[in-house]
């Protein structure tokens, strides 16, 4: 056994799978401890793009340092998009009386100079809707703010109206580390405003637990039924094979849906979902263990063990089980992987664990789909989840293939 373990860890496929799996496991265990939020905390109000958010008030209040860098060019570039330039040109031609040929969109300085000279919100703008007029007012304001090298005047409400608190020069900078109030959301926030990274890592942990439970239950049931039906034979075998066949022909996912649906949403804990998945996934393990045992049953060492007067449980545990053990380990790994996928499928349909207390990979996908994250371009709400599911199941399958090569040497190339 030790020897096989050693071989497994020198098998590249197994090793890569193992490392990937451990990586996911570690992230899911460590990140929730470091994160400032609980997975279900509503940090913001809706889909929020990934990034670091700092408090504007904090920035304004902090003492900056003057830098010899003119920030206006960068600001201008972010304000003046190509479509804005088109709009400015349009306005100037229609209402400012500037000839179309005089305007060069690529020359920012000349364009701004012309704009400041001609734009006047008081000019009658025939044919423009009010909203469009307001848009030009805002654009003008933005441009003024961006080009303003005098800086901002910060005021606070005083007894005689506004009182100047301080002036912030255009070239004043503040060190991000000095800003006290900061929110880091590496993967943004989902529709509830919850931090996706925290939610994702904690759902990986829950999904893994569900998969593990489902896999262990399915393997235990399958192993027991396979061992008994293969070794005992006769009517026991006939009955158990019949049972297995029934469970094989009924699509297990349908049973899964029916059972999950029969239990009310709030009563479904993650462990219960794992149990349900495990109870429907065992048939193929049972079938393959049975066929392995059938070929082992007639091996001479089993006959000799019988002749030595050993009891049935002892023969099964000592003379049969060790021979199927390697196979069962592989089956377990595959069952865990398919348990995780089954949970994701169930939760996608809204039949997963209770959504008010837990969060799983499937539930996250379910919400992302319900709140049209795809249409809204909020990729951070579902792409990381999908990738996580893919990496976990891929790593488990890779480990399985690796073990297969270790246990069946003829598969090695």
């Amino acid at each position, binding site marked *: 056994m030790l020897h096989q373990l050693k071989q497994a860890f020198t098998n590249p496929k197994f090793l890569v799978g193992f490392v990937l799996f451990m990586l996911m496991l570690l992230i899911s265990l460590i990140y929730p401890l470091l994160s400032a939020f609980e997975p279900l905390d509503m940090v913001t109000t809706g889909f929020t793009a990934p990034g670091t958010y700092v408090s504007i008030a904090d920035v304004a209040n902090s003492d900056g340092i003057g830098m010899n860098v003119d920030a206006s060019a960068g600001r201008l570039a972010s304000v003046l998009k190509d479509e804005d330039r088109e709009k400015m040109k349009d306005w100037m031609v229609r209402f400012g009386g500037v000839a179309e040929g005089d305007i060069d969109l690529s020359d920012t300085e000349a364009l701004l100079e012309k704009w400041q000279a001609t734009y006047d919100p008081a000019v009658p703008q025939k044919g423009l809707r009010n909203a469009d007029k307001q848009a030009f007012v805002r654009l003008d304001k933005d441009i003024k703010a961006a080009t303003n090298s005098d800086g901002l005047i910060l005021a606070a409400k005083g007894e005689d109206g506004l009182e100047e608190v301080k002036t912030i020069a255009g070239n004043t900078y503040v060190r991000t580390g000095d800003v006290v109030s900061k929110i880091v959301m590496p993967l943004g926030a989902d529709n509830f405003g919850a931090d996706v990274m925290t939610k994702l890592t904690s759902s990986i942990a829950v999904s893994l637990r569900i998969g593990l439970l489902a896999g262990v239950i399915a393997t235990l049931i399958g192993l027991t039924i396979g061992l008994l039906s293969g070794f005992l034979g006769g009517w026991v075998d006939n009955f158990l094979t019949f049972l297995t066949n029934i469970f094989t022909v009924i699509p297990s996912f349908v049973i899964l849906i029916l059972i999950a649906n029969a239990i009310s949403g709030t009563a479904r804990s993650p462990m219960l979902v794992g149990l349900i998945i495990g109870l429907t996934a065992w048939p193929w393990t049972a079938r393959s263990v049975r066929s392995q045992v059938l070929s082992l049953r007639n*091996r*001479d*060492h089993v*006959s*000799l*063990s*019988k*002749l*030595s*007067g050993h*009891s049935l449980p002892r023969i099964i545990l*000592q*003379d049969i089980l*060790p*021979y199927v053990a390697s196979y069962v380990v592989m089956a377990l790994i595959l069952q865990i992987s398919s348990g995780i996928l089954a949970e994701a499928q169930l939760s996608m349909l809204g039949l997963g664990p209770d959504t008010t207390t837990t969060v799983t990979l499937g539930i996250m996908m379910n919400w992302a789909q319900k709140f049209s994250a795809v249409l809204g371009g909020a990729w951070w709400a579902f792409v990381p989840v999908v990738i996580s599911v893919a990496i976990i199941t891929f790593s488990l399958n890779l480990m399985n293939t690796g073990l297969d090569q270790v246990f069946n040497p003829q598969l090695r190339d």
Partner: protein
Amino acid sequence: MARELGKSVLRGENITKVFGYGKTRTEAVKQVNFDFHEGEVISIVGESGSGKTTIARMILGLITITDGTLYFNGQPRDISSGHKRKEYWKNIQAVFQDPFSSFNMFNKIDDLLIDCINMTGGRHKSQEEKFEMMTEACSFVNLKYAELTNKYPFELSGGQMQRLMIARIFLLKPKILIADEPTSMVDACSRATILDMLLKLRDEIDMTIIFITHDIGLAYYVSDSVYIMEHGAFVEAGPAEDVIIHPKAAYTKRLISDVPKIYGEWDLSTVG
């Protein structure tokens, strides 16, 4: 070489084995009769598919007898309960063809031998006594216990494994031993060793040995009585000298003429 026959230990009357039913029904063994005596070496010779292994497994009690009665020590054999089976198996043991599949590869050699000691009522013996017994058993088959201890079966060669199987029989000391092609998977040189050991064991504990084999030369060399089997029935039975040197049944004659000879002429013209 001719030995005085002891009293009968195993007698079969109209033993029949049927596999399957309806269209797949096959009679593997058809109403065979036999009588094996204490200390006798018997060979059941037949080609593959003749039903010789089925007889062996029925005698061992690993499969049921469809019809007929098997008498053990003069009494009809009764293995209806687990306890009775255990009692019966104290008297009958087996060595199988393939040494590689005769061992549980996950158990150490010591486990196998200690298990045999426990089985024969040596459970309460001290460590030293057990060690003594294992050493004795190993040296009986020309193996050194010190070299085997803490080893797994797959670290041994096929011949060594088969010898260890004989050491197991040495410890169990059964009344009857069924040897199912014990030498067909080992080299000719190891074959002689294994046969010698089995015969020596027979002399030591007055055991009955039933050889199941396809090798008529081997049957002639080791056995007192020979049963020739064809299609599930015995076509000829009797002392080895009579059956093999002066065969009467046509099948036996053909079988013997098909085996290559070295002293006489091997007549190739009788074929095809």
